[in-house]
């Protein structure tokens, strides 16, 4: 069983939901990320999504776009993201790591070489935003053959047929994009999310993490009651952006928000 499956199973037994922070690797500089990852684990997160910076992040809102730009200014790259994952594993063997990014860096790396390198780095899942199932079957097999979970997105307008397709191709969990829009948008409609989750549950047994638009502890609690996991990204990265000249405060604010979310979700 993969670390992701085991994590969701253990949480389910304990009646808890996964707290999943997303951070862009190397934002605002490469030295900031690793200590932040360890601190997030101490604050009670269950899975970490590490963003692979990309020059053209088409599905991301302005907050994550700027995070990518800051990281790329420090020459962050897919290779260095993998190196950082390797470094993290030296002292943490239990927290699942999911890499999330766009397909071109992986295409240029080479799909098979990348799958090998991700395995070597002991990464647990890969979410490739602009690689829908139509184009992902070979790549998905490469990952699964190495016990890495290919994670797919579901959207508010995904049909039942597509949910079934993701159920077959995906593993680990499915990431439900809770609104039509880019990351960090602010118009999450809880009733819509609840209604859609019923459709998703009817078509897959995979855990469903919900993201896009989760900003505070209260919302994380509401979302946790609907899904199996809560993804928070832009809200964390905003803390970095607000404190670029004082990164200790940035880190402290991120940890405080995650701790508050953890507490609200477990209450």
């Amino acid at each position, binding site marked *: 069983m993969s670390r992701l499956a085991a994590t969701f199973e253990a949480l389910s037994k304990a009646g808890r939901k996964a707290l999943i922070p997303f951070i862009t690797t190397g934002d605002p500089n490469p030295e900031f990320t690793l200590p932040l990852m360890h601190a997030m684990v101490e604050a009670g997160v269950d899975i970490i999504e590490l963003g692979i910076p990309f020059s053209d992040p*088409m599905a991301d809102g302005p907050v994550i776009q700027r995070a990518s730009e800051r990281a790329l200014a420090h020459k962050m790259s897919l*290779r260095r993201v993998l190196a950082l994952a390797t470094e993290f594993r030296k002292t943490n063997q239990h927290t699942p790591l999911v890499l999330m990014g766009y397909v*071109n*860096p992986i295409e240029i790396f080479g799909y098979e070489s990348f799958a090998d390198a991700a395995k070597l780095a002991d990464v647990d899942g890969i979410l490739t935003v602009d690689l829908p199932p139509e184009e992902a079957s070979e790549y998905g097999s490469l990952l699964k053959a190495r016990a890495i979970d290919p994670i797919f*997105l579901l959207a508010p307008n*995904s049909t039942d047929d597509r949910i079934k397709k993701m159920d077959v191709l995906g593993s680990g969990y499915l990431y439900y994009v809770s609104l039509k829009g880019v990351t960090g948008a602010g118009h999450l409609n809880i009733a819509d999310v609840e209604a859609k989750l019923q459709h998703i549950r009817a078509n897959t047994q995979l855990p469903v993490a919900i993201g896009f638009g989760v900003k505070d502890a209260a919302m994380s609690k509401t979302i946790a009651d609907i899904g199996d996991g809560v993804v928070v990204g832009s809200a964390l990265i905003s803390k970095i952006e607000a404190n670029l000249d004082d990164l200790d405060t940035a880190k402290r604010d991120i940890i405080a928000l995650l701790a508050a979310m953890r507490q609200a979700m477990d209450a």
Partner: protein
Amino acid sequence: MRVTKVNTMTEKYNMPDERGHFGVYGGIFVAETLIPPIQELNEAYQRYLKDPEFIAELSADLKNYVGRPSPLYHAERWSRHLGGAQVYLKREDLNHTGAHKVNNTVGQALLAKRMGKTRIIAETGAGQHGVATATVAARLGLECVVYMGSVDVARQALNVYRMKLLGATVVSVESGSKTLKDALNEALRDWVTNVDNTFYIIGTVAGPHPYPAMVRDFQTVIGHEAKQQCLEATGRLPDALVACVGGGSNAIGLFHPFIDDTSVAMYGVEAAGDGIETGRHSAPLSAGKPGVLHGNRTYLMSDENGEIIETHSISAGLDYPGVGPEHAWLKDSGRANYVSITDIEAMAGFHALTKMEGIIPALESSHALAYTMKLAPTMKKDDIIIVNLSGRGDKDMHTIAQREGIEL
């Protein structure tokens, strides 16, 4: 065992496959939220391009609104001067709005209307596609938002003003390199947010399927007319076709109807900017490698980490790091040749046509003209070249004057 390279070229050409692949190129590489609207668009495109009523309405609009057919003009004086092949210009610059772009926007706007969409979005580089989109949106009374990189907003101020007069909202994009690719990113973000009522009119033969095939189908009117006109004027097919390639819509529009006519050579001309060797160019087919961007696999300019490289060209319309997937396929198959022309050479092409024929070409088209100046002298006097004069140069007056140290 079939040798695909040879056989696909001797059989009748029918790319792409039903999932939008031109060999390994093309496809659908977008986030999940865009899959349903792309499927909806594909169904509408498949249905209406076979619908006699739609075809009749499109044909009438192309004739009465765009002003087609555009002439095929024999540039006799320039041909004599070049001392080789006879050069014919396909006068897309004479279309309403001044470029070939309107052939496609008229078509996509009719689709939008039939699909019940009330809001149109577009990306633009030089502003020609933005103007062509704002034009058809005004005519149909649809809301229109055009995304344009802030660098392009500055160098194409005239077109920005035209779009605003036509009632469009022009959004200046400040992210990334602030040019066409960033405008495309921003348009995709808009589309993902407003999928229910919005139709995205992509201006070139790139993007997720069905865009490369659909935009091509709307642009092939160029090549169909040119073939007919050439046969009428000379009694035979041309020997060579020349067109500039940014995304590649005017080139594929001219080339496509000739793909099975293997005696006709095809030259796509990319922007070499300051020179391929400087790295400051926009020539992915000449100096890039395959990758994935903006919904399709194609030749791209990206670095060793897969990040997209900033491009350069004097011509905003060619300043793009990718190219339509069908061109990638035509390159690999050997059916078309891709060459490049620097900013300096393009300026020479611009002046040559202006002085010799009294036609002021767009900087994009000037790349095709500059390559023609190299090609024509190597050919016989009874050989025929058709050059796609894809747009007129009015929009470029400021850029050219500034480059030549003249204050307007």
